[in-house]
């Protein structure tokens, strides 16, 4: 069986001008290889090749305990580290029927949204770079620093903060937590309009993004494109809204939906989501209840035999965790349905027939994080 090599059925003709974009390429944002077939400047088809950063997280999970798995999930979508942790925690808590304290729910939700803000800021920065507007990178990162400082103060780490633990949080947040967040929100409410001034209204940007890579709602659903990319096509897929977890059922917010489905719509969804995230945080940050930072948990967590499924909304879409347990302290099988994996494979549908520059714009607007694809 293993000797059998499956031949690709796309026959590459000799005249095809094939460019391997990646694994080292400035705008693939990681080690992704896109096999791009060109006719002049026009893209004929794209075959994504992945696996350059495959670490076998699912296999590793079968050998380690649930507390340890949390730390692996950080390394999947490193820009939504907190949401990844939360997915596993929620799944384990549901399986054990543990009710986490209200304080934990509030803090988790705030951190989710902060992480989403940080992720969208980085996306905005890198998206501008993809389109050749190099200045956006520094504007985005300047503001992202503020969030990372809040993270550092509370968790001790800036990017991969395995702050969630099954049953609650690793430890309580820093006393400055609320003040830091409030300062940031007041600051960022002034700075976010700058983003629009710099990029959104630009004529060249509008021309580059409008009507490029149009994805219909049906296509988004068929290809499982979730998150802001899916919502730009009118696919109402915000799990925070229709399958609320943590404290999302306690806050008022709008699901951002655009129906155009082009690159500009995906861009606008993320820009509006930043405003919504700030709204959510503002509703929660003053009302964090006092209490324990974790529920009482046994030191060794053993899930009852069975299958558990939990979905959360990360910054890039729907992350689903599927645990098959046989009653041991390690999972029998663990599957992560990562949003980027599905989002990547719609690329051929969107970019084929366009120009190379459009391909870059589209891959930027899908906001891919490669370690999440490879896992």
């Amino acid at each position, binding site marked *: 069986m293993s000797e059998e090599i499956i031949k690709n059925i796309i026959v590459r003709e000799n005249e095809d*001008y094939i*460019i391997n974009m990646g694994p080292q*390429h*400035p*705008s693939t944002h990681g080690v992704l290889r896109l096999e791009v077939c*060109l006719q002049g*400047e026009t893209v004929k088809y794209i075959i994504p090749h992945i696996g350059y950063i495959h670490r076998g997280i699912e296999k590793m999970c079968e050998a380690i305990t649930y507390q340890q798995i949390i730390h692996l999930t950080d390394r999947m979508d490193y820009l939504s580290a907190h949401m990844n942790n939360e997915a596993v925690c929620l799944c384990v808590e549901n399986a054990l029927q543990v009710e986490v304290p209200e304080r934990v729910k509030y803090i988790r939700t705030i951190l989710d949204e902060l992480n989403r803000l940080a992720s969208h800021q980085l996306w905005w920065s890198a998206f*501008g*770079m*993809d*389109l*050749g*507007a*190099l*200045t956006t*990178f*520094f*504007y985005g990162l*300047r503001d992202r620093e503020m969030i990372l400082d809040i993270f550092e103060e509370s968790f001790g780490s800036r990017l991969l903060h395995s702050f969630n633990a099954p049953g609650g949080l690793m430890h309580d947040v820093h006393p400055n937590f609320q003040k830091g967040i409030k300062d940031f929100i007041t600051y960022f409410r002034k700075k976010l309009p700058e983003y629009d001034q*710099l*990029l959104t209204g*630009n004529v*060249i*940007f509008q*021309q*580059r993004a409008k009507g490029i890579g149009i994805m219909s709602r049906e296509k988004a659903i068929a290809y499982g494109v979730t998150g802001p990319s899916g919502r730009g096509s009118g696919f109402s897929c915000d799990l925070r809204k229709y399958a609320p977890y943590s404290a999302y059922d306690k806050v008022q917010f709008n699901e951002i939906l655009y129906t155009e489905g082009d690159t500009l719509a995906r861009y606008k969804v993320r820009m509006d989501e930043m405003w919504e995230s700030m709204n959510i945080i503002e509703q929660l940050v003053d009302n964090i209840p006092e209490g324990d930072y974790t529920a009482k948990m046994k030191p060794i967590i053993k899930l009852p035999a069975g299958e558990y499924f939990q979905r959360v909304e990360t910054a890039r879409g729907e992350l689903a965790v599927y645990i098959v347990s046989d009653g041991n302290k390690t999972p029998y099988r663990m599957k992560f349905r990562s949003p980027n994996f599905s989002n990547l494979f719609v690329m051929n549908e969107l970019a084929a027939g366009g*120009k*190379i*520059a*459009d391909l*870059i714009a589209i891959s930027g607007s899908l906001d891919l994080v490669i370690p999440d694809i490879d896992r």
Partner: protein
Amino acid sequence: MSSTSTIYDFSTLTGSIDAALHNWMSPGLVLTAELVLVGLIFLTFYALLGLFLVYLERKVCAVMQNRYGPNRVGPLGLLQTIADLIKLLMKELIPIRKADQFLFNLAPFIVIIASFMAIAATPFAKGLQAVDLNIGVFYVMAVSSLGVVGILLAGWSSNSKYSLIGAMRSGAQIVSYELSVGLSLLAIVVFSGTMQLSGIVESQADGWWIFKGHIPAFISFVIFLVASTAEINRGPFDLAEAESELTAGFHTEYSGIKFAFFFLAEYINMFIVAAIGATVFLGGWMPFHIGNWEAFNHVMDFIPSMVWFFLKTFFVVYLIMWFKWTFPRLRIDQLLTLEWKYLMPISLINIVVIAFIVLMGWHF
């Protein structure tokens, strides 16, 4: 002309050097010595200018991006680019096995020679110009478009797909935008009635063409700015080296000093188009004068003509940098649409309007 007579004329200096040399040696030797002298001065100037422009670009971009820019090596980081140059000189020249070696090595020289030739006709100050051709504008246009040959050679001979696409883009782009640059310069040639660069500068003694030439001259200036930015492959028209699409475009495979040549040529080209723009539209080394304000005009005359030239040139350079660091890049088809559907017809109509204005004698 009376008001400009106080400006120091460099031709007295160059004339005295010429006379002194003639006293010492035969006319043939004098010519050789002068050529060597001018060549040496230009080489030094060229290298220093390139380094300074790179420094300036980094500082300007740092200002746009909320950061400091180079500030460690030397005072205010002024020596940073020299350190970078030394680094580039010491870098290994990576040989490309399947490249066409001769053309691969030739390409950077063509690019740099083209920019070097263009700088020869630039009037830096009153009487300070290496060659004052009577077809100066035409010469600069012709020579500066030679650079594209080097770019095409570089892209083709690298035997890299990215390079080839970059070179082809660059070819299409420069061939298109050359027309608009030419037509916008032609507008001022029509106004001033001469192609000689020194003559164009002299014709602006009573006011720069951008002010004297009504709206058509201003339109020409804008078209010139856009088209020349495109011609020198700078953002937002840097499709030839679009680093997010083609990694580095035509110079992907170059390293070390050969890469430095492309790099330097790009910056010098920027200086050249800025110098041409300043000379033709903003009065070159002519001081800023306002109508009959004799006292004001007289004070302005005391600022050396060279300072005026460089002020104006770096103003245009700053404009070009400003574009680059705030605009996203265009797509290739949008780039060509902009030229053939908008800039080109506008400049053609503009020329006709200007010809009419000049015919009726409506300009100042």
